[in-house]
């Protein structure tokens, strides 16, 4: 159903912490591989925008918030397990 939907991501990172740097790279690679041309990524540095992290309830970094398509999902971690991310985004059938 969400085969052609636009994916809006918001990735909360903690400055240049190794985990965060890795997550940015992983997300970029993932989008390129699985969601070509239908993704938008916003990267939020919690050190620059702590209030936003607070209101959003982001306590672990890196955290990927999937804004669209609904429902809003949160994936915590470096996104190194591609399978988990695919499952979370409901994209498993594509790769099969």
């Amino acid at each position, binding site marked *: 159903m969400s085969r052609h939907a636009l994916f809006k991501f918001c990735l909360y990172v903690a400055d240049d912490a190794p985990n965060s740097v890795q997550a940015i790279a*992983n997300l970029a690679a993932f989008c390129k591989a699985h969601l070509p041309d239908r993704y938008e990524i916003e990267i939020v540095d919690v050190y620059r925008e702590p209030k936003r992290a607070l209101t959003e309830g982001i306590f672990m970094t890196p955290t990927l918030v999937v804004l669209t398509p609904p429902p809003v999902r949160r994936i915590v971690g470096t*996104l190194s*397990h591609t399978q*988990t991310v695919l499952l979370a985004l409901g994209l498993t059938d594509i790769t099969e």
Partner: protein
Amino acid sequence: MLSTGNKIKPVQSPLVKTPSKAPTGIAGFDEITGGGLPHGRTTLLVGGPGSGKTILALQFLVHGAQACKEPGIFVAFEESSRRIVANATSFGWKLAELQKKKLFFLDAQPKPDLIQSGDFDLGGMLAALEAQTREMGARRIVFDALDVVLALLPDPATKRREIYRLHEWLLAHNLTGIITAKAGGDEASAIIEQPFGFMQFMVDCAVILNHSVAQGVSHRNLRVQKYRGSSFDENESPFLIGNSGLEVAVARTPGRVDAKVSNERVSSGVERLDTMLGGGYYRGASVLITGFSGTAKTTLSGAFAEAACGRGESTMFVSFDSDCTEVIRNLASVGIRLDRYVKNGCLRMISARTIAGSAETYLVRIKTLAQEHGARCLVIDPVSAWYKSGNDLTAQSVADRLIDWSKGDGITLVCTSLLDEMSNRVESGSPLQISALADTWIHLNYLVQAGERNRGLSIVKSRGTAHSNQVRELILSDAGVTLTDTYTAGGEVLMGTLRWEKERAERVAHEAAEAAAKLKRLRLDAEEAELEVRLKSLQTELVAKQVEKALLVRSTQSHEGELSRGRTQMKELRGADATKPGRKVGPS
């Protein structure tokens, strides 16, 4: 000369210097730690489920916000802040007011639908907290149930890294922090086995909370495991969760000065008992009244309470046996009227049947209530009730602390202790062994004699006062409590009817003797009177005789005179010669 003599400064060893402390406002805890938690350092709070970690941590924040002008942040990993606030209202902490400025709750519970992919860290939270800390000027912070979030981390190395990150962050921001973590079950030491067990080595202060059950009675205690740079009480200290938060029972700390000793005497409420004690109890003394059930222990302690109230001293009466109203009614039957003092607020009656829990719970509750009331005299009836709640050792130490505390506060304490008649007939068998600690020990006993039970009172000991060695009989009547002398006859003490009979017999004998004496006097009086009468009649007779005798003399004289005159006349008539002198007159 010693010109510099007065300029010598006391040398303070750098070891003695203690870091500044952040008071927790928890009764007793600040005493154990010598002022509170280490300021600007991290404290680890370890305990099993329901051991009071969250409450302790929250109380620390509330106290900081209310009393120390130190705003705080509460990071809740486990419970939602709304629930914590709701739970805290039962302690009378007005969190809603504080929440605006001085207290901030951060809900950091991991969402149940959280998807995890790969490694992560707590950098986001620390960034958010940093902003919040700066904004509100927070000085205190609590991470409640850190283990919840640590459990999400994949391997021990990562957990360790995150804990260090947190610790470093706390130190860098000079925040006084509490981290709470669960320990498996009752064994607090089990935390060492857990991946974050090393936290105990990392932090500056570690407190272990325990919640155990001994003989079906719950016991809570806490122990300061370590406290860098400060001395602390190393023993397990029992605590309870009271109406206003945690209350920790503290044993007398070594630094405390000895209690002031008073020479003032306070009345025991029974006049003759005061006499027996040489003036009454000492102010601030602890008095133990032992006896079997029904030996008037309560009555005697009630008399003390009444006397104390009569002097206008705040008094507290704790009854473990019966309801307050019952106690008042029962005591009224022997002329001890406590109701008026309850009404004017001088006396506070507490029925401890309503307090459930361990001996610790009782002590802490009694202490709190007594301090609230400002009690100068305290009655606990009976203290042996503690014996049945929990193990003997605890009850013993509680009784020790009770006496220690009352002495320290200068409270005159009267406690009764029930002896079990069936199993224990020895006087020294006071179950709590507080008889050794008590200053005055009054023993009440039954004397079964001639088909009667009578109450006997004796003073087993009374420190520092001369006291009577005699067993007295305790008599309860609607006029009050009195003591009477007992009769010692043939090495046996007589009481009750026997005493009364003996008294009557003596009275009768006395009366008889009196009557006999009176009779004798009367008889003597009569005899005396009789003799007097006889004496009088004899005197009269004597006078008569004397008169008679005088009469006789006179009549003889006149007769003789008459005779000689007559002879002369005859001579004249006869014209006889004058009688020649020397011539015998007579018929020739």
